[in-house]
């Protein structure tokens, strides 16, 4: 059922993107390790765990301190060799690369996960769902609002509301977190209606339904700030697209063919415009991963972004490097998804294999 060209395209893109991901993370590692920071992280982490193991190992209980130290040292040396940490800079970085890609980044210096673990991987993965939840919800809302808004306004071309939207388009140059600050000032500092941040009320409600509603309440302002930031420009550019695309010849042909107006709008105006809309959307989405970091910080939302700004305040290098890696992963998945969606919408890409 699925055309072969499409599958080939997906496979090719996935491979290419994964290669790009590996190279990107490698570059990040190189940048991070310029002062040997990652080497130190890994080494001290190693030393700590070996020391702990030896101390707790009953087999070594009867030994003197210096004998134990000798064991620790020799274990440490062989561990260094096993992990290639005695090798030159570039090769060492490859070992770090492998670790970074799998988020196997040892222990954090200061931060802990909610479950008490200091494992960087757990800390990061714990925050992942909250970010995904916020991000994808907003993206979906944005997509449909801007799409429908664009369609509606395109129909009212030349009217007052059309001009109002056009005049308000520059407001989208202001990033979501600035709107977030304003929203907090209005809805919390002034009106005391909504919370200024966090995931859920404190103390967290026991009842799952109330808990869920509380989370929703905390999601309102962050989502609103994001939505407002993209709204007017989004509607305006979609409306422009629709206007341009509705003057295409094949739209006239469709009308002349006697197709019902609904079908002309959906099939001959909307459908061919979707690839352009998705392109515009991709740039916005890819850009908003970065902005999300600051937005999460403004709203104290316990996601990846908040984690990153917490980590940088100490600073806690293992967590920071881990964050860079996971964001690289998220970006790769985003780009891949958008490429697939685009291929689905635009047959030219499928047939020509991208």
């Amino acid at each position, binding site marked *: 059922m699925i055309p072969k060209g499409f599958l080939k395209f997906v496979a090719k893109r996935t491979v290419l993107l994964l290669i790009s991901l590996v190279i990107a993370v490698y570059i990040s590692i190189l940048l991070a390790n310029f002062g040997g920071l990652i080497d130190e992280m890994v080494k001290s982490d190693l030393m700590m765990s070996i020391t702990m193991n030896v101390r707790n190992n009953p087999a070594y209980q009867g030994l003197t301190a210096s004998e134990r130290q000798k064991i620790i040292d020799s274990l440490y040396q062989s561990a260094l060799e096993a992990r290639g940490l005695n090798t030159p800079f570039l090769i060492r970085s490859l070992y770090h690369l492998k670790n970074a890609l799998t988020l196997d980044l040892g222990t954090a210096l200061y931060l802990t996960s909610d479950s008490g673990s200091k494992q960087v991987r757990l800390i990061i993965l714990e925050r992942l769902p909250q970010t995904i939840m916020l991000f994808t919800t907003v993206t979906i809302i944005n997509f449909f609002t801007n799409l429908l808004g664009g369609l509606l306004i395109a129909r009212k071309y030349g009217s007052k509301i059309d001009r109002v939207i056009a005049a308000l388009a520059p407001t989208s140059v202001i990033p979501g977190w600035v709107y977030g600050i304003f929203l907090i000032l209005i809805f919390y500092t002034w009106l005391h209606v909504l919370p200024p941040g966090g995931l859920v009320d404190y103390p967290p409600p026991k009842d799952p339904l109330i808990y869920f509603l509380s989370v929703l309440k905390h999601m309102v302002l962050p989502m609103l700030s994001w939505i407002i930031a993209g709204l007017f420009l989004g509607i305006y550019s979609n409306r422009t697209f629709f206007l341009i695309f509705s003057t295409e*010849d*094949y739209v006239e042909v469709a009308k002349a*063919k*006697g197709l019902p107006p609904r079908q002309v709008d959906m099939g001959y105006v909307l459908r061919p415009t979707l690839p352009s809309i998705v392109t515009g959307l991709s740039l916005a989405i890819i850009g908003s991963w970065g902005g999300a970091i600051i937005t999460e910080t403004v709203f104290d939302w316990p996601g990846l972004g908040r984690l990153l700004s917490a980590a940088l305040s100490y600073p806690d290098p293992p967590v920071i490097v881990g964050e860079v890696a996971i964001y690289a992963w998220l970006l790769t998945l985003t780009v891949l998804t958008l490429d697939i969606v685009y291929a689905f919408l635009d047959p030219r890409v499928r047939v020509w294999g991208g």
Partner: protein
Amino acid sequence: MSSGKTVLSVRDLKLYYRTRKGIVKALEEINFDLEKEDVLAVVGESGCGKSTLARALVRVLPRNIHTYEGKVFLNGRNVMELDEEAFRREVRWKKISIVFQGAMNSFNPVYKIGQQVAEPLVIHDNVEKKEALKKARQLIELMGMPGIFAERYPFELSGGMKQRAAIAMALITNPEIVILDEPTSALDVLTQANIINLLKRIKNEFRLSYIFITHDLGLASELANKVAVIYAGKIVELSSADVFYTEPKHPYSRGLIASVPTLTTDRKPEFISGAPPSLIDPPSGCRFHPRCRFAWDKCSAEEPGMIKVGEDHLVRCWLYGDGK
């Protein structure tokens, strides 16, 4: 050639549309009859209103339409009286279909060719999709292309192929009249010839009537048995093709004929001086008078009506009316 049965009768069709600079009087006093298996060539310069006429007949109107009136009798029935929905269901594609100029962009880029050719069947005749696709494929093959092309996307076809597909699409609901708006102007000469031959063939096979819009007089002479010359939104001459090509009466028609280079004689092609007039503020009286060699006072003062100069031959020119 023509069977004598009148399929289409247009009376006083008028179309104006609004622009920022004023109201464009795109079509005025359009009157003609089309009989079964007629090929009416509608000729004129760019911007004279030929394409507007094509769209006016299928009621595909611009957003800034101002006036749209007149009578269009289809098999005796005035379809201008039908509301939009009735017109859509009964007239569009079922009775009149259209092949647009430059089929390059006549097809939706994201749907397959076969699907678009089959679409009118599904919409108008409630045919099941599979059946419709089968018929579409048959028609495509009839047009001289492999049936597998139905599975292709528009960008995979050449200009000539798309034009054939567009013709197939225009025929699928067995309309009586097909309007061809410059169907070959974007194609090379060889493909052009092929398409014209194809059009001849299917006209005979399906017993169609054509309204063939073109600026190319030579091309028109291949197919047409009737000619209507449009200038500045009005028909200035209407006659059978034979008469038109041997004895054009209107000065504009004569100018057009004279401007066609000939292969066999030594005659140098002439040109018509001046430029087409603005349709917002057309010249007073006869719209052609500023460019006419024979114009005199009456021409700028009063607009001539269509004057009968022979059997089925009408001319809008004072030269043939009240005399000089």
